[in-house]
């Protein structure tokens, strides 16, 4: 890096002194909460629902500095992990068709479907390529007019507008040999399913940073209004996450004193309350809601996305109709419960034994942001 390269200085967000201070405040708040009628004698469960938070918390060892009555659990925050087996099987089946180049984000390639993975099919000769951006898939389509370039479209609201923009660019450029397998999902209604589930038992939510960059905070208000669950949008540095936890505990304390739950932002540098309106409009122009199955959570109405007309011709299921073999759940894998935060990864019997990153059994161990992978990779920190 040359001397002139400007830097966006985030070092303060890794400052041990600031972190220490926040941890002190968190301890004080946790102690005060432990004395209230609502939380006396039971843990306070905070859930994070973003794979990047899962990694940030594990990497910084934040669980080991939490007071005893604060539990940080991970929810369905990794788009790859929540993709249900039938959708993975469909992508694999499409990849096997002649004349198809299947493009995907790297996280998806090793995820096992019911019977095989994209990586295994690639080894058997399928043309599967990892791309960094859907724009790379567009460029590939322009370079290979005799092939159909299919993009496996997974991701939450952070990623969906990007795919929407790419579809729009394909339409404008007349790239008719490009299409997508839409398995995108939207976050807020999945949070409703979690907030309303007594088995999950969430007290407060750490809301995703970059999903919120796009959608803002209005779509989460129902959590506070209908469920009394406070939420905070926060960033990914240790100080960001600690600040978020501090805000949630302050908020819970206020609630025990008669205040009402609220949704707040502790990541002002990247999130505006109204979100990125251009991105949301584009997403709504290209996609419309549909029902979709999430791994572990089942079908959640309206949380899937399908292409709206006149973009239906970019739907890969129309362009390459296939019939994948019948799906099944991976035997022994408890990803479903891990994704609902009902068990922590080490509570799965396969964790660290039959299931390790080199030989993953379930998607939560494959994906770099899966809860099982995060726990495994940073287990010495978690256990400290």
């Amino acid at each position: 890096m040359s001397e002139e390269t400007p830097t966006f200085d985030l070092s303060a967000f890794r400052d041990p002194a600031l972190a220490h201070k926040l941890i002190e405040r968190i301890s004080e708040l946790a102690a005060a909460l432990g004395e209230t009628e609502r939380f006396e004698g039971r843990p306070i469960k905070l859930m994070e629902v973003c794979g990047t938070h899962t990694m940030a918390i594990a990497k910084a060892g934040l669980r080991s500095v939490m007071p005893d009555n604060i539990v940080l659990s991970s929810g369905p925050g990794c788009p790859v992990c929540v993709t249900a087996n039938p959708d993975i099987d469909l992508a694999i089946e499409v990849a096997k068709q002649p004349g198809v180049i299947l493009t995907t984000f790297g996280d998806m390639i090793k995820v096992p479907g019911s019977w095989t993975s994209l990586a295994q099919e690639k080894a058997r000769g399928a043309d599967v390529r990892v791309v960094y951006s859907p724009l790379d898939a567009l460029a590939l389509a322009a370079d290979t007019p005799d092939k159909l370039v299919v993009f496996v479209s997974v991701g939450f609201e952070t990623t969906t507008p990007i795919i929407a923009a790419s579809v729009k660019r394909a339409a404008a450029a007349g790239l008719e040999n490009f299409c997508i397998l839409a398995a995108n999902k939207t976050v807020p209604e999945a949070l409703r399913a979690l907030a309303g589930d007594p088995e999950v038992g969430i007290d407060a939510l750490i809301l995703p940073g970059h999903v919120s960059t796009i959608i803002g905070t209005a779509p989460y208000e129902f959590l506070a209004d209908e469920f009394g669950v406070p939420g905070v949008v926060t960033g990914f540095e240790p100080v960001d996450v600690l600040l978020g936890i501090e805000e949630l505990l302050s908020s819970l304390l206020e609630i025990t004193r008669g205040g009402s739950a609220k949704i707040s932002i502790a990541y002002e540098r990247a999130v505006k309350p109204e979100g990125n309106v251009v991105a949301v409009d584009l997403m709504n122009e290209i996609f419309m809601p549909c029902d979709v199955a999430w791994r572990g959570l089942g079908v959640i109405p309206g949380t899937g996305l399908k292409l709206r007309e006149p973009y239906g011709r970019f739907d890969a299921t129309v362009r390459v109709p296939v019939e994948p073999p019948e799906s099944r759940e991976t035997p022994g894998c408890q990803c479903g419960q891990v994704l609902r935060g009902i068990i922590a990864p080490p509570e799965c019997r396969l964790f660290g034994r039959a299931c390790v990153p080199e030989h993953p059994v379930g998607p939560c161990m494959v994906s770099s942001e899966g809860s099982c992978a995060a726990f495994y990779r940073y287990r010495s920190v978690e256990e400290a």
Partner: protein
Amino acid sequence: MCLAVPAHITEKKSDQKATVDILGLTRDISLDLLPDAKAGDWVLVHAGFGIEIVDEADALETIELIEQMPVGFEPTEVPEAFQELGYEPEKRSDYIKPADSGKGSVEEVGAPHE
């Protein structure tokens, strides 16, 4: 998967594209989602697209907010639930150490292991 990193726009180009400096590398990104971004702006980049203009001033404000937070609670704003906690304002200087004091090692307080 929703990872996004700050990048500095060095040049705005045609077709809603821009050249950015991203962690020391030069890349072209799309500004389809940020039509108003201009050269000199910092943007968060996700999968080849700018998704938001990020503001260093906001970052500093957040830090200031934390710096000004009392540890323990000032007597005037001590909620009832805290009154038995025995907050001592003097204690504050114990936790707030300058970043380079060497005390409070990275492991102890949970900064990233890099």
